[in-house]
């Protein structure tokens, strides 16, 4: 990849993206523009219902799985619009992975969960073994599961399941990983482990983290974007946004005047 010049530019570039629901006057997302540089962790914060989940779901066309939503604008992945007519959403989702609010392991073995994405593209068995081990190491789960890879994934604890989901997303070597409140169903200890996983991952991936928790954004994010009523109010380095927000709405949110 180095030397192509793309390394320098943003991996994802969102240009004037709006999302509308049928029969709803107000857009769920209103003309959002933001760039995501390589090796960065951007936290999306904002009050409940402001459109954070909808926004990350537009970034890999997951939004299209909800009937009745219309997306406008462009999302450029390495310069290519993922909503262009000849683009296959399945391929988009293999490059831009996603981890959800609650662990979504499949009722198959730990190994097969991590290998799920690789099996879809018919990798060789050696390649799968290698990629799965690597992904589990990166997600910080390897030591805990290496002797029980064939056990059902549902036997893991919630925190372990969530790290398995991160491993599943990592295994296909995407460039971007979307995390929609990945720790909101976890206890503090599990949350801490997932946070440290995210910190090591941002060395190699573009991470986009939706969080309710301003403290979490402060701990792990390089950059914070504040969303309100479907609009991107402001975005900047974590310290700037959390300590010196320019907008009154942002300050109100940061200081906890609404949630």
């Amino acid at each position, binding site marked *: 990849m180095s030397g192509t010049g793309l390394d320098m530019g943003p991996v994802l570039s969102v240009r004037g993206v709006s999302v509308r629901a049928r029969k709803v006057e107000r857009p769920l997302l209103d003309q959002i523009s933001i760039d995501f540089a390589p090796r960065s962790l951007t936290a999306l914060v904002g009050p409940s219902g402001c459109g954070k989940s909808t926004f990350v779901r537009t970034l890999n066309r*997951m939004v299209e799985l909800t009937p009745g939503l219309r997306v406008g604008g462009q999302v450029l992945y390495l310069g290519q619009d993922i909503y262009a007519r000849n683009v296959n959403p399945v*391929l988009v989702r*293999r490059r831009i992975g996603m981890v*959800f609010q*609650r662990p979504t392991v499949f*009722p198959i073995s730990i190994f097969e969960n991590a290998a799920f*994405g690789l099996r879809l593209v018919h990798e060789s068995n050696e390649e799968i073994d290698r990629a799965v081990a690597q992904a589990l190491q990166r997600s910080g789960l390897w030591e805990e599961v290496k002797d029980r890879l064939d056990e059902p994934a549902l036997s893991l604890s919630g925190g372990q399941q969530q790290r398995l989901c991160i491993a599943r997303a990592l295994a296909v070597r995407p460039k971007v990983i979307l995390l929609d409140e990945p720790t909101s169903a976890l206890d503090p200890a599990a949350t801490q482990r997932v946070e440290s996983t995210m910190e090591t991952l941002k060395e190699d991936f573009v991470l986009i983290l939706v969080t309710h928790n301003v403290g979490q954004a402060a701990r792990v994010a390089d950059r914070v974007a504040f969303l309100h009523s479907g609009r991107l109010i402001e975005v900047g380095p974590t310290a700037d946004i959390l300590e010196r927000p320019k907008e009154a709405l942002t300050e109100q949110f940061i200081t906890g005047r609404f949630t």
Partner: protein
Amino acid sequence: MAADLSSTANSILFDRSARTVWRIGFDRWIGRLLPLLFLVAIFPILSLVYYISEKAVPTLTWNVITSTSPYGDHLGVAIVGTFELYLFATSLAVLFGLFGGVAVAEFLPESAANWVRTSANLLVGTPSVILGYMGYITFCLYFGWGLTFEAGAVTMAFFMTPYIFRTADLAFTSVPAPIREAALGSGARPSQYILKVGAPIAFPQILTGIFLALAIGVGETAPIVLTTTASVLVPQNLHSPVTVLTALIWENYAQAPSTGLQTIAFQAAFLILVIVLVLNVVVRVISTIYRKRLEGLYQ
């Protein structure tokens, strides 16, 4: 002031208004009545089982059950016929039901899917004698198959399909949405999602549906007796006549009442009871095993 407060507390904690007293009493009576209602429900079933067993069991020997001789009681012939016909019918019904259920749950737009669902519900509500008659007109007459194994099996397949279709549809639509999205979000094509994630989750429910459809189908008489003709031989090929257990009851009891033939009818009824019981137990066992395996799936 203190007195006021305590009297308020009293009225909250010890509500003795007429309505509450009545409700508590009503509750207590319903509680006593329920076991009685259970008896009302179970009594006819038990007496039926007793009545049939009493007439069937004394003369029901292993030899009677296994003999496929054309000169015997034909119970063995009917058992083989039942097994073969329902194997054929179930395979077809599983094929139709599964494809239909998956299509409706995963591929068809909501409005079209609801039309199909409504049709399936109507089909379940259609009296089986009408379905049997439709089968007779379509397969025996219009297709010119005559009263044969194939006409009976295909008609029975149509009878069983909506049951399997409904459970397949339900099983796939009740896969937790986040699990489905996670699979599609990992870059699975819809077909890959269905095979690798949806199917393992839906499997126990679908299997239950298949066995229940079979249990209902085995006890249905009309679709078979209207589309096949009985034979003293086990089916030779698809165009053969075929005797199934329900037909044995129909022919021997309703058509030609003599004590000896009636006993055969009771024996056939007894065997159907046993088959349905076994099928229900199998369903129970399977669904318990698989429910355990899926425990903890995104609750």
